[in-house]
């Protein structure tokens, strides 16, 4: 009887159903999706670690990656097992109690990979008994969650044309949604969905048009052919609207806009796509005809709150272009927008949210000085929303750049930049963790950082905000005030997002610093 019972229970253990992904609040000890929930909150309801004991945080264990590429992973934790990706496209399952590997997936990588910014990977998705990883050679791979064995491996695109996958996939219902990178290679961008069980492509949404599509009119001549608009950061999903919200990247070439006059749809957009069909419900373009490489590939944050006199379903978006946007996520209506970091390229946004550009801010051969920098006021790394404080936390970057205009000759598989950039001599760059009031963009507090950060934040019910710096420190701030409560030197530049989970009933916080994954706890 006991054996029989085990036989019934065992196949279910560790199964991550869509129902579980819909309700992470029911199991706060796990971290089941890239952002912790579908709404992009990166918030942990755990509060064993809190403002009164955060100063006692210390490493429980450290996992060292062998790769010297940037370590950008957000771990996923399911029932005592942590799944991380490592550069370039490896996956490791770790025991959360000891940090010891349970299995490893190691992918043999081609020598001629083409990426703009390192052979990185930001994490995996889980659904059913599979773990999904996108690879730098543009495959989507499903691994057995118990063994790491490859269950299926499909080609998403031809990496030799400059397409790659760095994004953590998102599991929605019975599909795995995965974006593409390659915005510096004049690719034709898209967002894909695959059947989670078989790997069969379910839908593809092209982010740049084909000949004859109405959007082609937003590109001069046939410049859409190399329009890029990559989709390299994980989006959000709202089960009530059944829409997937996903940002798109820069138009190609990055800094030479002359060859692609027009708004260049759907570059630098937020797309709202039907999760079942991939059909476009609405879009909002933040930076029409971008000439500064300000991808709108930040993580959208979904909350419900009152704006303009009534409660609405909102989408919050601190954009790389230094404006903070609030949209109605049912229809894409622009509700408000204002700068949250220094910018010199627009005098503001009009009633529709379209930027009112300052003349003379486009790149030139001699160089044009503009804020924000190419890295932007925000970037791929995650913001966090705490329902407890009602604040949106953003790692903001204060930096400008001199932008150059250059030639743009498209050649398959080669970078298609059309210019470049450099720092502004003598200008101090700095950063801050900023707490924004979500519906107004007003800054509730800020904690200044020495250099512009490139690492995301996690807020927790312990009234904490976790983050990390370029100088290798992990830190915890009081979420309500921004006061520093804890810091730890991890010895390497932080390029990742923190998350939190329970192991053996105790709260832990994980974040990658340098080439190591640190897991902290309070003894």
């Amino acid at each position, binding site marked *: 009887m006991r054996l029989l019972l085990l036989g019934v229970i065992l196949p279910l253990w560790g199964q991550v159903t869509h129902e579980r992904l819909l309700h992470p609040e029911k199991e706060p000890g796990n971290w089941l999706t890239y952002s912790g929930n579908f709404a992009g909150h990166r918030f942990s309801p755990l509060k064993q670690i809190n403002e009164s004991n955060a100063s006692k945080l210390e490493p429980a264990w450290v996992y060292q990656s062998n790769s010297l590429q940037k370590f950008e992973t957000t771990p996923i934790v399911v029932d005592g097992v942590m799944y991380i990706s490592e550069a370039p496209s490896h996956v490791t399952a770790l025991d959360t109690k000891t940090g010891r590997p349970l299995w490893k997936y190691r992918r043999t990588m081609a020598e001629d990979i083409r990426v703009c*910014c390192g052979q990185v990977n930001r994490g995996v998705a889980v659904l059913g008994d599979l773990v999904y990883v996108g690879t730098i050679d543009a495959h989507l791979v499903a691994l057995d969650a118990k063994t790491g064995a490859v269950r299926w491996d499909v080609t998403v695109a031809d990496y030799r044309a400059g397409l790659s996958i760095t994004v953590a996939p998102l599991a929605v219902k019975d599909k795995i949604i995965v974006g593409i990178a390659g915005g510096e290679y004049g690719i034709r961008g898209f967002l894909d969905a695959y059947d989670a069980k078989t790997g069969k492509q379910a839908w593809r949404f092209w982010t740049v048009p084909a000949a004859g599509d109405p959007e082609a009119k937003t590109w001069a001549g046939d410049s859409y052919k190399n329009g890029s608009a990559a989709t390299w950061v994980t989006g959000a999903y709202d089960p009530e609207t059944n829409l997937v919200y996903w940002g798109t990247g820069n138009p190609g070439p990055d800094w030479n806009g002359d060859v692609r006059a027009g708004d260049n749809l759907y570059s630098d957009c937020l797309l709202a796509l039907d999760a079942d069909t991939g059909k476009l419900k609405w879009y909002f373009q933040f930076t029409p005809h971008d000439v500064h490489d300000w991808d709108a590939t930040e993580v959208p944050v979904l909350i419900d709150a009152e704006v303009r006199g009534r409660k609405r379903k909102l989408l919050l978006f601190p954009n790389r272009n230094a404006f903070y946007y609030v949209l109605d996520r049912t229809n894409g209506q622009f509700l408000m927008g204002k700068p949250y970091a220094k910018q010199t390229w627009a005098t503001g946004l009009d009633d529709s949210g379209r930027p009112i550009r300052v003349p003379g801010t486009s790149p030139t051969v001699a160089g044009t000085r503009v804020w924000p920098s*190419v890295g932007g006021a925000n*970037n791929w790394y995650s913001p966090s929303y705490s329902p407890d404080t009602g604040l949106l936390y953003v790692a903001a970057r204060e930096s400008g750049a001199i932008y150059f205009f*250059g030639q743009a000759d498209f050649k398959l598989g080669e970078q298609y930049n059309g210019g470049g950039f*450099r720092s502004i*001599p003598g200008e101090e760059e700095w950063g801050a963790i900023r707490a924004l009031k979500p519906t107004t963009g007003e800054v509730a507090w800020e904690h200044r950082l020495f250099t512009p950060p490139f690492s995301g934040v996690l807020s927790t019910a312990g009234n904490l905000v976790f983050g990390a710096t370029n100088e290798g420190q992990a830190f915890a701030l009081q979420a309500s005030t921004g006061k520093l409560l804890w810091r730890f030197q991890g010895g390497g530049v932080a390029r990742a997002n923190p998350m939190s989970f329970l192991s053996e009933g105790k709260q832990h916080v994980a974040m990658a610093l340098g080439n190591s994954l640190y897991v902290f706890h309070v003894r």
Partner: protein
Amino acid sequence: MGIGISDIIRAGPFLTKEVDSMMWWAALLLFQPTPVLDLPAKNPYTTAADIAYGKQLFQGRCAGCHGPEGNGGKGANLAVPMLGRAAQDPALYRIIRYGIPDTEMPGSLMDPRELWQTAAFVRSLGALPATPVSGNAANGERVLRGKAGCLQCHALGNDGGRMGPALNGIGARRSAAHLRAKILDPASDVPETFRTVQLTTRDGKVVRGIRLNEDSWSIQVRDAGDRFHSFWKEDLAKIASERRTTMPPYKDRLNEQELDDLVAFLAAERGAR
């Protein structure tokens, strides 16, 4: 795309913020392109029009450090018949594309044709007659070690002090004209990585020195007595940090001949020691 600053931020005296150029160098490095595997042995873009366009590109991107005529500033003098790091065209291409690690020379995202055109302009500089250096280098070394007292603060080989940047190989990095200007007016070029700081602790102690490192919450300095100090910023009442030099101007300390000789010595100091 995801541009980061610095996974390559290094240990050592440059791990600080005003290493903007360093951070940008790293940023550019992150912006890794397709690996350049097969470069032609000879620059394919060397017509007069290529060189003219290369000059335009050079003015925007390179002249800030290398000078409008490429004869050096805070960046190396490129108006020389033989570039030490780039004797062959592919090496020059790669340096313009990727920069030089552990220096302030950043990489660039120019299109391959533009990289070659810039390289063509740089090569054309070497065809110009070199700026003559009139002084006597041997006398210059005596001035450096004697009257000018340079080694009180600067190192040369294993001799000298540590308050200023080491002079080893300075002639390969700075033009004679730049060295002369710097000696006459030290404030004319303070390295971005070099900062003097004055720290006042909460109990009133004052520490002055060269900043070795800094982050959001701590700062490390070396004082004039070569002692290291490290503080949490919360323990400091005041942090005065400036890109300022403690080097005195030599305008009235050296005569014209001594200055010529000193410049001749420094310009010939190519680090072969």
